[in-house]
């Protein structure tokens, strides 16, 4: 049985996020357009096959059950020998075909384009502490001002309106700060992945 976790250099049971990270790292390393080693194309197919199975929650749970039945003797009672063989062979062929098809599709794309597509999927968060402080500061200011808004409108329209403008301004500033943090985070992740760090 193919050990997809091992192919992706992961421990059994790794979650989908870890699978995606490992795939990004390895696929960028072994893409045939970039890596000219003789076994790179074969390795790329294996990586793609493993990824296509482990990234899908349904396929992953199916594979995990088969994996346990095959590699872990304690779980073997869940499957009888015969049913295991039948299920495994059928699934294995199906996954291998699908993986090969996907790998061929990805191999035909130039490396730059492939990297661009792959890195597009990066989930983004504003993780920088200084950025987070600035966002909290500005966002907190806007929220704080909101509490004064009803009283400001009672006292007179002018004060309420200027307060409202300030809230909108601060809110927009917080949003811009978030966008900058997001863009920087994305760029940093891209660079790390492309440099295989």
């Amino acid at each position, binding site marked *: 049985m193919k050990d997809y976790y091992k192919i992706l250099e992961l421990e059994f049971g790794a979650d989908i996020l870890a699978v995606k990270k490992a795939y990004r790292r390895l696929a960028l390393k072994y893409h045939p357009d970039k890596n000219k080693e003789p076994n790179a194309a074969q390795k790329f197919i294996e990586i793609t096959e493993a990824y296509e199975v482990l990234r899908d929650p349904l396929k992953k749970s199916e594979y995990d059950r088969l994996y346990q039945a095959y590699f872990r003797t304690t779980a073997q009672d869940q499957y009888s020998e015969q049913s295991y063989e039948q299920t495994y062979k059928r699934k294995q062929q199906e996954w291998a075909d699908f993986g090969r098809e996907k790998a061929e599709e990805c191999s035909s794309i130039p490396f730059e384009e492939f990297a661009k597509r792959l890195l597009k999927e990066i989930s983004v968060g504003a993780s920088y502490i200084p950025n987070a402080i*600035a966002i909290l500061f500005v966002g907190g200011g806007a929220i704080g001002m909101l509490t004064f808004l009803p009283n400001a409108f009672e006292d007179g329209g002018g004060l309420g309106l200027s307060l409202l403008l300030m809230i909108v301004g601060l809110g927009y500033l917080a949003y*811009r700060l978030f966008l900058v*943090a997001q*863009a*920087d985070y994305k760029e940093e992740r891209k660079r790390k992945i492309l440099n295989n760090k």
Partner: protein
Amino acid sequence: MEGLVLLVVFGGIAFAIAHFLGRKRQIGFGWSFFFCLFLSPIGGFITTMLSRKYYDPNPEPSKSKKVWGWILIVNFSLSALGPLMRLGSGNGDATALNALFMAIGFIGLGYYLIELSKGKNFNTEALTKTDE
């Protein structure tokens, strides 16, 4: 005496923000320090944080930044006239000086935005290294 202490504290905070944050961003040390001094450390900190950490060598020209830059320059140049006249006639007080200080900060911000709209990199040294 109180003013001097405040200036030293503000200067220290401004230097820290410019050194630890501004130096690594597109804004650079100089502009970050300028904004921290003239727009208060909070204003400077937010402006520094609004600057990108990674420089895009082919940025899209931004019309809105240019427009905002000119609005700031025109508006605060006019608003600086009042405090300037008060200071010139010898009736200047701390409020007039503060207003002038703030106006200089915002005029600087306007100029910075106009330059930014052209895609200028204010921190060539640090960001070129990162891009390599």
